[in-house]
């Protein structure tokens, strides 16, 4: 898949409280979560982000709680891809499970407002603004299959259908 978009860059250790503060966790509606996405890291994020824009960050993006509300809020903001030097474990699996694309790459050369062209299959990240290309770590086969299956729930629905057909 080819994606092109503008970057919103964040620092290291962006925790899930920054992505979606717990004061909004009395609700899980994606549209309501979107309004507060990244609020404690950048209070104006929700008003500035446009569909197709990317999030880039340093190490350990999504550390802290297991709240799936975090990748849901990002996905609901229209962000198709998050690129970080590394992701915290639970955020990593949540993103794949719900079908939010994430790539691990060196993001030092990427700044806010840069325009990127990303070939997600090749893991190629072209920084159009700076004319620098970086490559993402390959996505493990299992994870790639999970994404192409449409996420874990789609996989679950297919499994149920398959099991029902076997019974017939």
């Amino acid at each position, binding site marked *: 898949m080819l994606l092109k978009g503008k970057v919103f860059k964040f620092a290291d*250790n962006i*925790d899930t409280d920054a992505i979606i503060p717990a004061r909004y966790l009395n609700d*899980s509606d994606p549209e309501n979560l979107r309004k507060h996405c990244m609020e404690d890291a950048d209070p104006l994020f929700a008003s500035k982000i446009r569909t197709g824009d990317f999030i880039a960050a340093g190490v*350990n993006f999504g550390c802290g*709680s297991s709240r*799936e509300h975090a990748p849901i809020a990002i996905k609901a903001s229209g962000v198709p891809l998050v690129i970080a030097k590394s992701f915290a474990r639970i955020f990593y699996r949540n993103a794949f499970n*719900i079908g939010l694309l994430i790539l691990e790459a060196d993001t030092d050369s990427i700044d806010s407002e840069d325009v990127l062209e990303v070939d997600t299959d090749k893991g190629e990240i072209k920084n159009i603004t700076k004319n620098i290309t970086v490559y993402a770590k390959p996505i493990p086969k299992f994870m790639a299959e999970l994404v192409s299956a449409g996420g*874990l729930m789609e996989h679950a629905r297919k499994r149920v*259908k398959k099991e029902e057909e076997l019974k017939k």
Partner: protein
Amino acid sequence: MSNPLTITEKIILAHTDLESCSPGDIVSARVDIALGNDITAPIAIREFDTIGVCDVFDSEKIALVPDHFVPNKDIASAKQAKTLREFAKKYNIKYYFESGEVGIEHALLPEQGIVLPGDLVIGADSHTCTYGALGAFSTGVGSTDLAYAMAFGEVWLKIPYSIKVVFDGKPNKWVSGKDLILFLIGKIGVEGANYMALEFSGTTFKHLTMADRFSISNMAIEAGAKSGIFEPDEINEEYVSKRAKRDYVIYKSDPDAQYLKTLKYDTAKINPQVAFPHLPENSVDVKEASAKNIKIDQSVIGSCTNGRIEDLRIAASILQGKKIAKYTRLIVIPATPEIYLLAEKEGLIDIFMNAGGVVSTPTCGPCLGGYMGILADGERAISSTNRNFKGRMGDITSEVYLANPAVCAASAVTGKISSPDEVA
């Protein structure tokens, strides 16, 4: 002869149909308990309803604990709790808890013997790693994972590499499991164990209680770890045997099991720790923290990390006969109803209230900035909880310092971050 394995590898392997495994392998594993709470389960239930199964995989292997915003803090959280209740009713979920039965999930499940050694447990809560203290493999996952597990009883897992962490020697006065884990996170950093299993051992643990182990395993996630496990021993056996209502399996690492690395620490050189804002890795010796004369507005003693009876006893031993500092708030939250009742019986509740503190019913409440002790702008708390991220307990300009319950109690008395030695 098969490959030597760690306790973590053995438990995961025993929950698959495979004959061998290696770190890095992605496997589908059977779960013994799948856990959700009033924040994460509503999403799981919403997703579960779309899968198309007509029942949960096993109504006796699912635990739903409404502990975060319950008793309901507002209408929206009441709706979330209602979602859990209705799901529990519909599918006859055995381990669903209501009002006076509700405790903080990670204190409640081991206490009630619901999670046991050798289990494979997943929970839609990052601190699910707590049960590693029992010698179980347990890890935090998301709501979608919980939905999948409730339907099929399975979870996909990457077999983690293990890091061995050895603490040897007798702990100093006031040093608890909380201090050892804060010290370790200070050494390896908040992503020092990302994707990995921490395996704890050493002579120090003969001197500490199960409560200390729970605190340590609980905060493995704050180093990024997938799990934090202890091999069961006689201290574990003493705790588990009186609680277990079903059979369980004791696993131990093979002597020549492979570790990514081994870290060894001399516990005698470790003093109580205080983690400065805004990361748990910013831990320093309490004496260093005390010397900085850091005024506090609030002290919180509770949470899945430090709300157990041992924690309340040590806090009460410091607060007995004392008053907390003027214009300082003390909030004490026993983690489960059983702990609450025991604290009452032992006179600890009296001590907290006579000191000027408030005692809340069990809830995660203030730890995640939910309710029951939110910080205003510029306010500062010392807390026995597990995270001190920016805005974690309230306003984005507020600050959280993490410490053990003794340090939190002492600081409440002086109104500034203090060593227990200063008031005891």
